[in-house]
């Protein structure tokens, strides 16, 4: 099935400069599988979000889901 990944500007070095792209994953795949297929190393990941909510790597995906890979929240 097809899902979309949207990555923050700091991570596009792992995605050939693309900030929004499709990834083909198996049915019932997790966020982790999609990110692995996209070639983004786990240690580079920050916050993951879908539909205005934080998600984790084991979140199950559905066709056309859009996962945002964002920098970690930072501050004092």
């Amino acid at each position, binding site marked *: 099935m097809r899902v979309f990944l949207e990555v923050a500007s700091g991570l596009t070095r792992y995605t050939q400069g693309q900030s929004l792209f499709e990834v083909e994953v198996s049915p019932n795949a997790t966020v982790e599988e999609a990110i692995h297929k996209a070639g983004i190393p786990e240690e580079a990941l920050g*916050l993951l979000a879908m539909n205005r*909510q*934080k998600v984790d790597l084991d979140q199950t995906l559905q066709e056309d889901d859009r996962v945002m890979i*964002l920098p970690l*929240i930072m*501050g*004092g």
Partner: protein
Amino acid sequence: MIYEDYIKVLYIDLNKKQIRIEHRKDLKAYLGGVGVASKLLEETIHPELDPLDEGQPIIFAIGAASTVYPVVTKTVAMFRSPLTGELGECYAGGRMALTLLLSGYDALVIQGKSEDPCYISIKRNNVEFKDARALWGMSNSEVGRFIRERESGGGKRSIVRIGPAGERLSRYACVCVDTYRHFGRLGLGAVFGSKNLKALSIIGDRNLPIKDFKGYFKVYQDIYKRVTETEIMAKYHDIGTPLNIAPLNASGGLPTKNLRQNAFEYGDDVSGEAFAKTNLVRKVACTGCPVGCIHIGHFRREFDEGYEYEAINVCYDYELIFSLGTFLGIKTPEEILQIIDVVEQMGLDAISAGVVLGWATEALMRGLVTQEQTIVPLAFGDAKSYMTAVEYIACQPNDFYHALAQGADFASDQYGGKDFAMTFAKNEMPGYHTGYGSIVGPAVGARHSHLCNGGYALDQSMKVLDKQKLVDAIFAEEKERCVLNSLVICLFARKVYDRPTILAALNSIGHNLTDEDLTAIGERIYRTKLRIKKSLGFNQLEVKLPKRFFETPSMTGELDEKIAYELIAMYQQKVDELMAADESQPTPAVSGS
């Protein structure tokens, strides 16, 4: 004072225009910074008096390694907060820490009230009380310019001052330090105003040789390398904390329109990246910091008809974009910078000002107050009305704005709307609606700030809520930050300054501390703060949280009010255990040199 066995305290009496200096060996048990300031506050505070009574003290302190190592750049201020009525504690960078160090003082205690407006000029061998009647009414930038032109020592001088809001005792007036830094939260500016104290000018011009330079330089180089080469510190320099707008907006943790929403439909337009592309003109650093995280944004202001413009530069960061931007529904960086500039000139705390205006806007929408009272038609997205309202908060032209100048909690006592007056124990909320950590952290924090224990950060690292783990982590971080703030580091570098680094840093400049010593010092400082809070009548279990926190989903989903109160009670149990141990222990021994 490094290499000395005492803390040098300058006591300033504004009533008598006199000073005295004490060399306090006993205060070394508190290391420096927030430890020393807490103890001095405990000694001089008057729980029976109003926070703005002239009898209340203002304490400033630098730390055990101030400006001797990279990013150890802050000065702490402690006082009785006029906003919350309890512990007042805030931090500022700029040049103040270096000038205090090189003027020879570890701490200042300012007491009494000047008969007329004054400012104090502090030099290595001289303290002068100067007439500031002509400065009264001046904005932050005007008074800074005035003192710069009249005091010597440019480059080795720090100018610390208040604007009109402090003079008029707005209970969240701030104190501006060297133009771009602030003692922002909890109303120190009003305490200055209550003492007729417009400003401090501090000149530090002595030399302070390092004894074991080889050992010191090795530690310095290691820290410098980690500060300048790690990715997290690079982020603070590149886009800075406004980088937070994008992840918080995407994940539903960005307080918007008085937290009626957890995301902003114009979030992309006011993101850190948007500010960087359209308005960022400069980055500057506090003295002693190689990072340079202070982002300066530029806008053009028309000051007269006929195409007459001036270029205005103001600093911005995440909290300001949240409080004066998303929280008020402001859609463009240009407008946010314009509101920041008015807040800056009036001398208000930006977070409180924005959150108070968020409450006022909703109060008007719901008919709790009228436009006759608000004078301007406050509405989310209306930057012009907010700019005027900020001036009214400072100048208080009617009862409504007088109430707003006391804070959102006070205003909602007067007019209703407590459920959407977004405060933690009377202190206006910071820009995180991320989960239980973002609520419990500031609710239990000693000064009710997100910086007390960084509770919000736990919401992104904790996969599933583990109540005990969350409470334990907040408690541990609250105590650890007492150690960090006794140095006084900038908390942006807290991951660089782990325990081995702190010990290496301190022990190479004459201390002889162990890991256990630091733990004991951290607990000693926290207990001191808790004793002060208790003496001021604070009861953690009486703190009420606005219902809005539980109506608007957070980054980690909907939050249950009962669970939040349960977590707060669990935290209080840990505090009770700590304080019970306090009562059974003898007076602390002096640690280190």
